[in-house]
């Protein structure tokens, strides 16, 4: 199982998913009424490292973090 956390304004509790890649996560999010709007502009971290490859493999125990557009300062 992979844990997925939604940060900042997404406003959704963490979920556990049985997925093996970011691609599968993208499919899941596209089908969710709340999550689909964040697919386009979010960055993604796996175990707190930002990843840039949609085929990035996920293994059980990984924590995936969805990072929507930012504005610090």
């Amino acid at each position: 199982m992979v844990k997925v956390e939604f940060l900042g304004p997404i406003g959704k509790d963490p979920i556990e998913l049985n997925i093996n890649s970011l691609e599968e996560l993208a499919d899941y999010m596209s089908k969710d009424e709340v999550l689909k709007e964040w697919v386009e502009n979010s960055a993604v971290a796996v175990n707190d490292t930002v990843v840039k490859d949609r085929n990035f493999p996920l293994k059980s125990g990984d924590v995936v973090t969805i990072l929507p557009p930012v504005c610090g300062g």
Partner: protein
Amino acid sequence: MELYQGPLDVKAISSRWYDEVRELNYGAFITFVGIIRAENSIEALSFDIYEPILRKWFDRWQEEAKSRGAIVKMAHAIGDVPIAQSSYIAAVASPKRKVALALVEEFVEDFKANAPIWKYDVVNGKRIYAKDRSTPMEGAGVLRKDGND
């Protein structure tokens, strides 16, 4: 890197940093302070921070600064910061003026673009995500079908 609940005590933080920098024999010390402006009928701004990735982001900048003979410092508020209070201080110290001036600009601009912090307007006690002022982080779009894979 320092994170605080609520507004920053800018005078105390920058005075402390100034003393640290003097002891380290740096010649140029620059601070950038972000102050909440009265506009759009807000009462305050509010901030969420994801600390693990912010800390990695900051550590990379500290390495970069070190490679130029400089140091960086940063403080940020978590939660609500009322008008005329401060949410953010960035600082750079270097033996050399030009290094410090170039570095503070890069450090602050990359902070705005890539630090994992989310901003909300507080209006009538409600938090409203500052969507139109927010920027997709580096690596955003990885989940798109035509994503950068």
